[in-house]
């Protein structure tokens, strides 16, 4: 659906159900250069099980208007504003990759609004390879190819998408290339590279938190994901074997099952 956040047209997938502000809200936040489309194998499930779902397109991404926000802090604040913009008071957040930094920032800036936090393929800092960053800021398509290479685990490079007929690497690539690379991926990579608040914010988080990590993640390595989880008081950690950074697609079923259990326990539907 389309709605206004700070006066700008914003798009979020509602998982195929009409949005209902009276149902518990889960907001999904995508990674660098991507859009709501990466979440389709998680969002539709919750949307048809009593939750209201918003898989947002960050400003300038996917179907949202405006320019990309330049810092993780701005993005975190913006996600907090989304909650009020749709008439809700609180939400659970699910972030992937850069979306983990964004959702942590959101909790730090809007602690009263956030009930649970799920971090997929996260780390407390995501410093960028300088060559990759330069390529993205120059809108060089090679940046996307490198990103798809790094983002998928060894098994993911062979394919085997959970949805019959889809080919992982090219799906991600086309989502990124839907926009001018420097305006989305370039800005996002720079924002990740500049962001240094992760460890301090993570240590202050005080809400039910789940970290889902890929054992073969080369974008945010397993050890970095574990360090982040260790910073967060009481964080649950689930590791998916033989999986890279794109667990939400590479191992969509396992990811959904883990998320289902966490949400059911910590953000249940009220009968």
């Amino acid at each position, binding site marked *: 659906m389309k709605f206004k956040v700070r006066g700008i047209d914003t798009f979020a997938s509602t998982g195929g159900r009409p949005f209902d502000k009276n149902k518990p809200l889960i907001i999904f936040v995508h990674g660098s250069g991507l859009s709501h489309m990466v979440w389709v194998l998680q969002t*539709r499930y919750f949307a048809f099980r009593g939750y209201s779902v918003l898989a947002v397109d960050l400003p300038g991404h996917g179907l949202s208007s405006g320019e990309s926000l330049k810092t993780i802090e701005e993005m975190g604040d913006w996600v907090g504003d989304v909650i009020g913009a749709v008439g809700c008071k609180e939400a659970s957040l699910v972030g992937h990759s850069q979306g983990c930094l964004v959702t942590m920032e959101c909790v730090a800036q809007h602690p009263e609004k956030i009930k649970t936090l799920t971090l997929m393929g996260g780390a407390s800092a995501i410093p960028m390879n300088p060559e990759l960053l330069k390529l993205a800021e120059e809108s060089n398509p*090679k940046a996307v*190819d490198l990103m798809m290479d790094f983002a998928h685990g060894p098994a993911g490079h*062979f394919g085997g998408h959970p949805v019959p*007929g*889809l080919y992982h690497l090219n799906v991600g690539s086309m989502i990124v290339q*839907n926009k001018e690379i420097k305006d989305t991926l370039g800005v996002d990579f720079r924002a990740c590279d500049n962001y240094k608040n992760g460890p301090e914010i993570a240590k202050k988080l005080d809400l039910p938190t789940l970290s889902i990590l890929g054992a073969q993640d080369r974008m945010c390595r397993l050890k970095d994901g574990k360090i982040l989880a260790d910073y967060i008081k009481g964080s649950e950690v689930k590791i998916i074997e033989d999986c890279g950074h794109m667990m939400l697609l590479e191992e969509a079923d396992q990811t959904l099952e883990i998320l289902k259990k966490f949400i059911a326990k910590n953000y249940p539907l009220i009968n």
Partner: protein
Amino acid sequence: MDPKTYKFDTLSLHAGYQPSKNAGSRQVPIYQTTSYMFDDVDHAAALFNLERGGHIYSRMSNPTVQVLEERVCALEGGTAALATASGMSAIFLTIMTLCNAGDHMVVSSQLYGGTVNLFRLTLPKFGIKTTFVKPRDTEGFKKAIQPNTKGIFGELVGNPGNELMNMPEVSNIAKEAGIPLIIDSTYQTPYLCRPFEHGADLVVHSLTKWMSGNGSSMAGILVEGGTFDWMQNDKFPTMTEPYEGYHGLSFAEEFGPTAFTMMARAEGMRDMGPCLAPQNAWNILHGLETLSLRMEKHCSNALKMVEYLSNHESVAWVSHASAPGHPDKELAEKILPKGTGSMIAFGIKGGKEAGAAFINNVKLASHLANVGDARTLVIHPASATHSQMDEATLKFAGLSHDMIRLSVGLEDFEDIVNDFEDGFRAAKKPRLVANK
């Protein structure tokens, strides 16, 4: 720093398959089953509602067929693919997903005869009309577009006359009109051309041909490039508006670069059901493993054959984009740098009677209605593949009664030539009799 994603030959052997998820089986297993067990009621509901990936019923998807779909998709550089029972069913499924009654297509006139008949005779029964345009008439494609036109369709190298459509320029015309360009790339395979790199939005194949190479199995496929923005205008409401068949799902919104394939599977396979048998998918996968090796030999044999035929006293003309003086030679060198394929059309002196004598007297070359087999194939299109067309349609499609269609195989070149010499000798005899 370069990406270490797998390249073409590796993908043709490995894409879409993980042995670790299949009991360690190195070869792709044949899942000869109709249906798949659900974990519980919630799992079943989620699968039926496209909330999670997986298999329900082999009319919709099958694990063996899935490997083939991903493999071809990877080779084409696409985002999603859907395999079907034949190339014709892939085209039909594509058009039925794209169009509604009252819609219109702009289509190249030089196509396989069955495809011509689909657009000319069958689709009008469903209220879908077509304007045919000669493949070299690039401006004609633009002029033929109407407000209700939903796409442009063509074979890059037309069957059987070997005229090329200027895919990059026709793609620009399609983009200006906000409609997709659909290319039947059967003749090329992704080894010779990846149409998405030249502006195509959807690609269809008959996998029965070179992709398989072994002449054992029928199969087709639709591949999506992920390049077309279905939401750019209001021409494609079935893609962009809530779809009643899946509780108000908007395919374009939810699935973006894979929306067309998701719709074709969810609606088309559900309601029409032209599914591919897993055994056939497995046979095609075997062929794909050697695609590069076979295409190289097909093309090198074809080049020698063009030279041989061009210099033969019994041959009136030769059409192959590599032939000297072919009107599309420059375009072919640009978009088919690895070779222009192994289909040759030639005119035999003596017309229809000579053609029949030639075909009846070759022994190595097989006279049959197929192309792209590992073996050399010949046919007289006007009396076979295109025989259901009237004279005017034959002429518009660029067919003549002296035309022989040749699909050059992988045999030793000298053996093919010796066989053809027998055919040409026999072809001279009807004329000698006539001259008396």
